[in-house]
């Protein structure tokens, strides 16, 4: 009885903690890295006072936010006001359940993994809408409206991109999708090449889904102060922050897994030496490759923020509905043809 309880309850909880705790620390370091990178791009120093190179800045900020008071605005809906941050955070963390880190390291090797991810990312919008509505503030409501319209529009484009990947891989399981990208042609076996337009659309939609610059009209400091979380302070604000950055890291991982071969090495099939287990991962693939790829995508989020001015709201809608979605629909047909005529092979047979 006790053995079974440990087997069925304790181990999953330990595995979940093994993903979420490093994720939360990664978010803190990502915030530090963002401030540092944008500082360099602005020819500033960025945070450099707390700890060596300012490394402890993010942790100092966390402590500051946690000990601040959470202020409830007058006439705000108390229950929903406190529920909204949790509704934003829970899907952001739950989505990590199906992310495979290497061929064996995955919490839940679900068959419908991609669908589960779509479901979780689409749930995140409730946190934003309810935060905007429950705050009883005009700016917050405007931010929530913008965000809801934007997330729903770009979810369609994102879904169609996923369909292209599914058609080529023939599976909804993320581990199978990565394995389908294995082959002897190095990084040319990965799906970014046959699905190049879709790959670009996927990442653009990912930036829009997470409400990041240049699609951050939901926050739009110059127009609506801070958008949906303008009334939140202290730990409630910190939770929104955590959810947003966890989603950014998730999108980076997914872009790597779906289009850039996940944990596969760009040298796969090029080098087939057997030196030592410590070096072999460079050509046989391992979780370090996935982390490197995800880091590059995460860096692009910051790069965009420092480079592009904010889109106008109607232009965001036009880009989503009139440019990205039609291209993605056409590419679903192209991907179907690729699969039908065998232009893109699956797995090692290619």
């Amino acid at each position, binding site marked *: *009885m006790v053995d079974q309880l440990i087997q069925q309850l304790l181990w999953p909880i330990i595995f979940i903690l093994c993903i979420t705790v490093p994720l939360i620390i990664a978010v803190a370091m990502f915030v530090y890295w963002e401030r540092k990178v944008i500082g360099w791009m602005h020819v500033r120093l960025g945070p450099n006072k707390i700890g060596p190179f300012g490394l402890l800045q993010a942790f100092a900020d966390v402590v500051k936010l946690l000990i601040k008071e959470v202020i409830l605005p007058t006439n705000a809906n108390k229950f929903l006001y406190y529920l909204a941050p949790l509704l934003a955070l829970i899907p952001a963390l739950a989505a990590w359940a199906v992310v495979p880190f290497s061929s064996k390291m995955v919490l839940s090797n679900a068959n*419908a993994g991609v*669908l589960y991810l*779509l*479901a979780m990312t689409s749930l995140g919008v409730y946190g934003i*809408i*309810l935060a905007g509505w429950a705050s009883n503030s005009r700016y917050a409501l405007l931010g929530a409206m913008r965000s809801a319209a934007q997330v729903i529009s770009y979810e369609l484009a994102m*879904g169609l991109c996923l369909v292209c990947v599914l058609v080529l891989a023939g599976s909804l399981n993320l581990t199978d999708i990565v394995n389908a990208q294995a082959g002897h042609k190095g990084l040319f076996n990965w799906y970014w090449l046959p699905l190049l337009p879709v790959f670009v659309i996927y990442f653009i939609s990912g930036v829009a889904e997470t409400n990041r610059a240049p699609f951050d009209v939901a926050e739009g400091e110059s127009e609506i102060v801070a958008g949906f979380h303008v009334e939140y302070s202290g730990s409630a604000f910190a939770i929104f922050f955590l959810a947003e950055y966890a989603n950014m890291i998730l999108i980076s991982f997914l872009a790597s897994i779906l289009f850039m071969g996940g944990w596969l090495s760009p040298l796969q099939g090029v080098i087939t030496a057997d030196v030592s287990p410590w070096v072999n991962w460079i050509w046989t693939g391992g979780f370090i490759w996935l982390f490197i790829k995800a880091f590059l995508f995460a860096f692009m989020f910051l790069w965009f923020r420092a480079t592009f001015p904010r889109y106008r709201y109607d232009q965001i809608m*036009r880009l989503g509905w009139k440019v990205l979605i039609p291209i993605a629909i056409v590419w679903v047909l192209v991907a179907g043809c690729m699969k039908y005529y065998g232009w893109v092979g699956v797995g090692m047979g290619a």
Partner: protein
Amino acid sequence: MNPQLFQLICFYAFSFVTVAAALSVITLRNTVHAVLALVLTFFSTACLWMLAEAEFLALALIVVYVGAVMVLFLFVVMMLDIDQEKMREGFVKFLPVGLIVALAMLAEMLGLIGVRAMHVQIMGANPATVAGMSNTAWLGRALYTQYLLPFEIAALILTVGVVAAVALTLRQRGDMRHESASQQVAVNPRDRIRIVKMASERPAGESPATPQESKP
């Protein structure tokens, strides 16, 4: 704990949440709360389907209804300014009509359940498990081979619905001014401004060393 007992406990827990949420949809006063209760109903129904190993349907329910339809629903309800007192004015007047409709529906449902209960049939084994593939793969194969025609007809009906909705709500207003984005993007700076290069000059009769304006 054996897995079957655990499944049973989960089933009753999810069912309880589903029924409680469905009840609160019709009893809650605040419309936004009612919409959220409906979201919870959908979500826990999806959990129940997941228990029944219908993972594709469960996740599709969350993606389509919870993720898209209910967000738009919530959106509309938040924008409405509903006067609660006015809503409750006709309650007594319309109560008999409501009761009759409710009783008719109850009778029909009980009849349906009664007929079903009379010829008890044992559910066959899960066809996906029998075929040895995942629920999603089995459903996809069944939809695109055995049930292709009904599937295509359903898709056509949905498309007609979309076209009809657009046709009904699209109003052409004469006083609207639209900007064409492609025209805006195609603008060449040289068509808009002309940069003239010229040497600096000053009004005739002034000496550069002592400008007139600087004298008091």
